[in-house]
């Protein structure tokens, strides 16, 4: 009885919490759209010597940040709302990227160094006679996009289904996701895999017939990225605020209790995991044409864990926090690596430590704390210490 009322109390608290950042969210959407539109206009309409001119480099950089923001949001959905800390989301991102990369590779046609109309350069270099079967159809945009979504989605489904059904949780799951992306990295480094080995896929020429180097294409890619990010953001917010979202939060806070109440918790987790993987894949697909290269380094465990720190900095379980965190940390990284390259890893490492020890709710938590009275703050702090890691108190004690 006590447990029931406890759960109800917890749920109502979560609900009020969820409604609150709603205003901030729509503001964020507005700011994002306005900024990218203004940047695009400044790039295309203003002359290059104008004070307000935005260089194409900046446009591409912004596009890259927004892809990262989308990836961070994907991690936030499962970590912040469901307590699944994935240290391998870079794998889905990279798989999506490879799907798009394969399409772009086929678009090069006979403009490659070796001038082979069918085979990409690296296959000619390896003396391959014909295209491997999994490259067929990748010259069609719709098919490539379908594959770039289907493969990561399927991987997430199989992995999640196996893991959640056997109730692998907490750090075990995190380590296994890390092992997954590590295994994929080793695999993609092999030349025999047919994905360009160490060098990956690069040297792209055009997408859907548009020149990738042209300013207009760059701007269009940025706008598409922004649009998709906004759509993903609104969809995700709708999901976490729906009835489904409430069950997911319940799974995060007390999985065993939710299970006893009759919810098939593993199903919720699997589908949320797949959804998150798909968003990561879309981010990867948008990332590759803008950056112009995809290589196995994207699978490295370090990349995936960096995403987690973006979310942690922004504040997890808020969605907009993930976007803000990704933008801020990546901007800092760009500045830092330009000014003092050696310092960046120190700063990143310190960020990990400081955020986890002193700012468990990230910047979003800091913002929310400003607007509250002392008593609410105290209650929050108590909650922080109790069960904010996404693992129920019972499991922590084990």
């Amino acid at each position: 009885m006590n447990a029931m009322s406890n759960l109800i109390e917890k749920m109502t608290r979560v609900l009020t919490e969820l409604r609150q950042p709603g205003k901030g969210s729509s503001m964020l959407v507005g700011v994002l759209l306005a900024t990218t539109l203004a940047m695009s206009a400044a790039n295309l309409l203003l002359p290059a010597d104008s004070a307000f001119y935005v260089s194409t480099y900046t446009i591409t950089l912004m596009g890259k940040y927004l892809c990262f923001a989308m990836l961070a949001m994907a991690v936030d959905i499962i970590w912040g709302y469901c307590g699944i800390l994935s240290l391998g989301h870079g794998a889905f991102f990279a798989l999506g990227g490879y799907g798009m990369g394969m399409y772009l590779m086929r678009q090069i046609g006979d403009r490659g160094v070796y001038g082979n109309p069918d085979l990409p350069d690296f296959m000619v270099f390896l003396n391959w006679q014909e295209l491997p079967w999994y490259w067929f159809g990748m010259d069609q945009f719709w098919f490539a996009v379908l594959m770039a979504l289907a493969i990561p989605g399927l991987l997430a489904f199989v992995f999640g289904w196996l893991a959640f059904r056997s109730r692998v949780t907490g750090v075990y799951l995190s380590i296994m996701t890390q092992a997954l992306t590590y295994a994929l990295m080793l695999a993609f480094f092999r030349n025999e895999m047919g994905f360009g080995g160490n060098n990956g896929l690069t040297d792209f020429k055009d997408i859907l017939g548009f020149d990738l180097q042209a300013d207009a294409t760059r701007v269009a890619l940025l706008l598409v990225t922004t649009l998709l990010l906004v759509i993903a953001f609104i969809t995700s917010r709708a999901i976490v605020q729906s009835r489904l979202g409430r069950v997911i939060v319940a799974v995060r806070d007390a999985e065993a209790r939710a299970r006893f109440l009759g919810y098939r918790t593993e199903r919720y987790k699997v589908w949320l995991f797949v959804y998150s993987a798909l968003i990561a894949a879309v981010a990867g697909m948008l990332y590759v044409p803008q950056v112009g290269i995809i290589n196995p380094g994207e699978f490295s465990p370090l990349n995936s864990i960096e995403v987690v720190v973006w979310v942690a900095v922004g504040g997890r379980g808020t969605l907009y926090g993930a976007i803000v965190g990704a933008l801020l940390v990546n901007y800092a990284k760009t500045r830092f690596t330009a000014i003092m390259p050696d310092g960046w890893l120190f700063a990143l490492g310190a960020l990990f430590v400081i955020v986890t020890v002193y700012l468990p709710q990230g910047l979003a938590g800091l913002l929310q704390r400003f607007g509250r009275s002392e008593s609410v703050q105290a209650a929050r702090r108590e909650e922080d210490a109790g069960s904010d890691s996404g693992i129920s108190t019972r499991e922590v004690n084990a």
Partner: protein
Amino acid sequence: MKQFLRSVSLVLTCLLVVLSTGSALAQSQAVPPAVEEVLQKLPEASLRETGELVQQLEQVGGAEMRPLFETMLAGDLYFHKTSGELMAVQKNIAGELIGRDVFTGAELGVQGRRDIKKIRVNNRLRGQLRDAIGRIDLLHGSEAEKRTAVLAILDDLSANNLSLLQSAADVGVSKSVGDLIELANAMVRLRDGSTTDDRLAAIALMDDRLEAPVRNQLRRLVDDENEQDAAVKAAAQEALENITERIEFYGQMEQLFFGLSLGSVLLLAAIGLAITFGVMGVINMAHGEMIMLGAYTTYVIQQLMPASIEYSLLVAVPAAFLVSGSVGVLIERGVIRHLQGRPLETLLATFGISLILQQAVRSIFSPLNMQVVTPEWMSGSLAINPVFSVTYNRLYILLFALAVFVTLLTILKKSSLGLNVRAVSQNRDMAKAMGVRTEMVDAMTFGLGSGIAGVAGVALSQLTNVGPNLGQSYIIDSFMVVVFGGVGNLLGTLVGGFSLGVANKFLEPATGAVLANIIVLVCLILFIQKRPKGLFPQRGRAAE
């Protein structure tokens, strides 16, 4: 009186002469005059003349000439341009050229690059030198040297060499060398023998020998179209199959050894984690960096004591334990303590620490790999038979891993610290209530786990490159080993490490190293889905 003075002055003169030429005399005293005479011709000789001189030296000098020939073969023989003095010259760690007396090994001090000139050798001369050394070894060498010399002769069964073998046998040899000489004779009988019985007897002697020349001769015989004797051919075929079977067996043994060796590396890397993760439940992503710190400690120790590299590892083991252990205690006190009961946050924070440590090492030393010297006693290999040998470094590291494991097990089971650690890991609150200082125990446990990781780093520095990324490459593997074996179970870590190592090495020939690694990883991921608690799950209430 006059006589006396004269004799005194004579003695004094002699003394003066001896004193002034003291060092030169001391050097040449070791060498008989006949040899000295030949040696003096060496600096001026052409390559062809050098060959003749070597022949003369072997005749007049005999076994004493071995160090000279060795030095020459290695290309280290120089002469001083002004004094004409011969010396063996080698670079030391600092890159200076150090001269040594060829025969006594006495130091002759640092040599200027321009003052000395090398005595040139070519391939023909090298062959001649090797033969000469072989002859010396066969007649005068130690047991092992005699063996090597006979084995070399098996490849080249000329009449000359056979008579040499005979004379060696006459001098008297041990049983194993005697067997080899007998084998050489059997090979000759098989080659030159006239009767079938004689040759069959020879094959019977060669039947179970693994030496490569035996195999080659039998194969040649089997493939020989001109060979008329069917019985001999059939016997040779059978013997060859026998030998191949045994070689395959030893190939498997070698595979197994490599697997165990990899397993010992995994065990070493994982064993510290088995303490911090398995017993304390703390996810330490900086564990790999503790290993790296241990490896760098080895490097620093070797830089501090370049004169006694042989003992550097013995000093490095406790030093690495202290360095990594104290860094571990610092991390525990500074960060992990504040994240009690929040495993995912601990994971992230320690990952941040690992980045900082990596970058720190990169800034302090360099991003490049460091050169860690392998001491004499760890290099080389132990030949069990001609087709199966194990390298000493892998063998020692295997033993070392087991020793560390046993030590750790003893600490946990027998010491009071171990008792406290187990109590805290089973029920923190109850342990606290019973008066255990849990904070202290936490710090000590974490220090112990990190220290062991540092010790592992000393061992790994002998096998892999010592660079800032050394630890990163082991962290995922170590976690896999611990989870596979069962968290909180040291024995599980042992079994897990060795089985993963062996599985990896047995897959490797079929798939290649990288794919084997991937397959093992994927199998592990699937295995953990099936049995989330690992091979040996902890039982009882404490585990729930």
